[in-house]
């Protein structure tokens, strides 16, 4: 479960996020969309504990990220849009490193399976510099999935992936949700969001302008009935 209540973050006088409230239930995939600079990254960083909200609370798997960070962080995985890897660790060593951080008992088996799933088995001994952008992204995803997180937060997870990997990644996200993980997916690829997510959160200028299923969102804007997510998104964010 991912739960944000009145999440607010100021930078000086600038409001990056204001009173963001939502929840993602176990087994659910929810999309987070918004134009550039809308506050998506600030929201995601607050959710995973990278930055502290000025106001409001975030709970992951029932634990407050600020007051009870360790169990909350054990339950979550954050996969950023830009894969950050350690330059002197090989792909396999990255998984060993993450395995120790999260005390993953069967790290060898799980690591091998994830490397195979991500098509990286033959690159297990490669350093990040020897991997392509897409391979780095796959390795970052493998690191995120190693400890079977119950809350999965993804920021543009398909960036740099080849078509085959995109298909596998979509399947992985769906499977993780079916296995009980709460998934929050931030992306500008509205087709992907429409395909995978049961609900959508739309953020603009740091505020939530809409949330719910497509039917629920359209019900408040009858003129958008029958339109796709792209038209709805552009209308909600005043870009149409």
């Amino acid at each position, binding site marked *: 479960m991912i739960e944000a209540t009145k999440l607010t973050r100021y930078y000086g006088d600038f409001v990056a996020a204001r009173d963001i409230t939502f929840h993602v239930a176990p087994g659910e995939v929810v999309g987070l969309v918004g134009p550039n600079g809308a506050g998506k990254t600030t929201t995601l*960083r607050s959710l995973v504990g*990278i930055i502290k909200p000025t106001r409001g609370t975030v709970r992951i798997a029932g634990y407050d990220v600020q007051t009870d*960070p360790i169990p909350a962080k054990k339950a979550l995985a954050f996969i950023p849009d830009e894969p950050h890897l350690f330059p*002197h660790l090989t792909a396999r*060593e990255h998984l*060993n490193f*993450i395995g*120790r951080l999260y005390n993953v008992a069967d790290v060898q088996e799980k690591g091998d399976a994830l490397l195979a799933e991500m098509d990286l088995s033959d690159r297990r001994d490669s*350093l990040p510099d020897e991997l392509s952008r897409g391979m780095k992204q796959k390795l970052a995803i493998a690191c995120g999935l190693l400890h079977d997180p119950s809350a999965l937060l993804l920021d543009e997870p398909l960036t740099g992936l080849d078509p085959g990997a995109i298909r596998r990644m979509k399947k992985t996200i769906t499977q993780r949700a079916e296995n009980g993980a709460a998934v929050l997916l931030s992306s500008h690829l509205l087709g992907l969001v429409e395909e995978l997510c049961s609900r959508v959160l739309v953020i603009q200028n740091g505020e939530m302008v809409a949330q719910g299923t497509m039917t629920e969102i359209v019900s408040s804007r009858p003129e958008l009935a029958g339109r796709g997510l792209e038209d709805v998104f552009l209308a909600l964010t005043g870009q149409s």
Partner: protein
Amino acid sequence: MTRLFLYLIGRSARNAAVRQLKRLRNPRYALAAIVGAVYFFFVFGGFRIGEAPPPEVGRGMADTARGVAPLLVGLLAAWWWLWGGYKTGLALLPAERDLLVPAPITRRQLLQYKIMQTQPQIVISALFTSFFTRGLPLTWPLRFLSGWVLFATLHQHQIAASLVHAAAEEQGRQGVRRHIIPLAFFVAAFTALAASVIRAVMDIRDTGQVTERLRVLMDEPAVLFALAPFRAVLAPTLASNAVEWMQPFAIAVLVLVGHYLWLQRTDAAFEEAAAELGAKHADRLSALRKGGVSGMRFTKIDRAKKLATPWFRMDPAGFPAFAVFWKNVVYGQRAVHPLRLVMVVFVLVAGVGAIMTFSGDEDGPALVMGSVCVGLAAVYTIAGPLAMRHDLRTDLRNMDLLRTYPITGRDLVAAEIAGTVFLVTLPQLLLGAVGIVLLGISDALLGWQAGLIVVATVIVLPVVNTVMVTVQNAIALLFPAWTPSRDAQPGGMESMGQGVITIIGTLIVFAVSLIPPLLVGSAVAGPLYLKFGAWSAVPGSLVVVAALAGQTWLFIMWLGRLYDTTDPVEAGLLT
């Protein structure tokens, strides 16, 4: 194109300055700028208002520099030839790589851009050198010009030597063949220099002869040949007056121009060889796919990169922060190769010992070798924590990643510090142990004395190193914007303050941190002294070390809280 490059360099410098000025609104960074300004005033103010040293001091300085500087610069150049530095010499920023390399700009123009880009640093270095050398007879504009030619030449020598090194390393025989002339010059010069230095060392019978032997060495024809280019670029700085300065300056400018032309040729040759090798590599792969393995010759480029195996394995179960310690040790192991450095020292020391033994000195070698090893271990106490930076100083840029890990700030900071302490302490203990054994062999130390020093070293060194590394990490956390980020680095006055705070601050904090433990240790040892005399120093010292360790642990806990409360966006670590 030059105007375009000047625009890029100028606007980048202006924007960096604006960014720094904005950062001064934070009191911590304002304080660093003040420290930098005070330091600058002492250097620059002393230059302007202080009295110049008497002429005989200046002449003495010039004589000393004339004797030693070419040798030191020559050794530095030999390092570039032998170990390279190509990546730092010509490294492109991501924006340069993505925007300039694909642009319709020739490789030569790109090289000119990189040379222009370093000019501000070279000018600043020349300016500072002219301040520091105010005791020399020349006026400061001439000293500045001489310094600029010196640093510009050395910079280009570094890049060219590193390119030749990289070509030989990466392209094997083709690389050597393409750079055969400069390589032949280097081999000849290095052999001549090395042979003369070894002969000079063998001739030394006592330390009183060192200066005289050095003077004779510098006048030997082989040494004059090997160090000729470095003498030429150093000569203008050491001239006695403006008239005497003109000819050496003209020669130095010629050497600079020669370096520029050499660099252009070296870079072009490097590119051609890389392209040729790339084509050959493709042919080999094609042959391999067709099953034609026989007759193919593999060069170094075909071999898989050999990575150092981690010194210890990591079980998945256990204290999670140990993973951070392990990561940093592996990082240091693969980036700095600390044990390889120790081995190089041992080989050099053993070489000197062998030469001394062959030259008939029976008592000296063990003493000299032991003293060098112990001395280097001591120097490493200061240099090690500054050089080994595989902790928060490099990891803070990954704060968006670290913050998602399920470990407390305290455990993370402790693990980061422990990794560097381990990397610093291990070579120190090896050097120290070998040094003490050698001193024992030379009879400079009695057996029990050597044993006592070993025990004391094993107890004291890790604690002292922990204090030094902790201070460095505290500075990184207090001034997080100084952490080299992906897009910008500090510079100017604030950067100067950064350097001063880092080095002087570390030493001052270390000295101050000793006061409470020393007081506690004295309180324990004092009463015992009446009964046990000098032996009371043993429990007293143990109490000092224990108090220092405890105090450092409290400091680390505070740093952990500071880490937890640091906002990476406000600190400038994330955008």
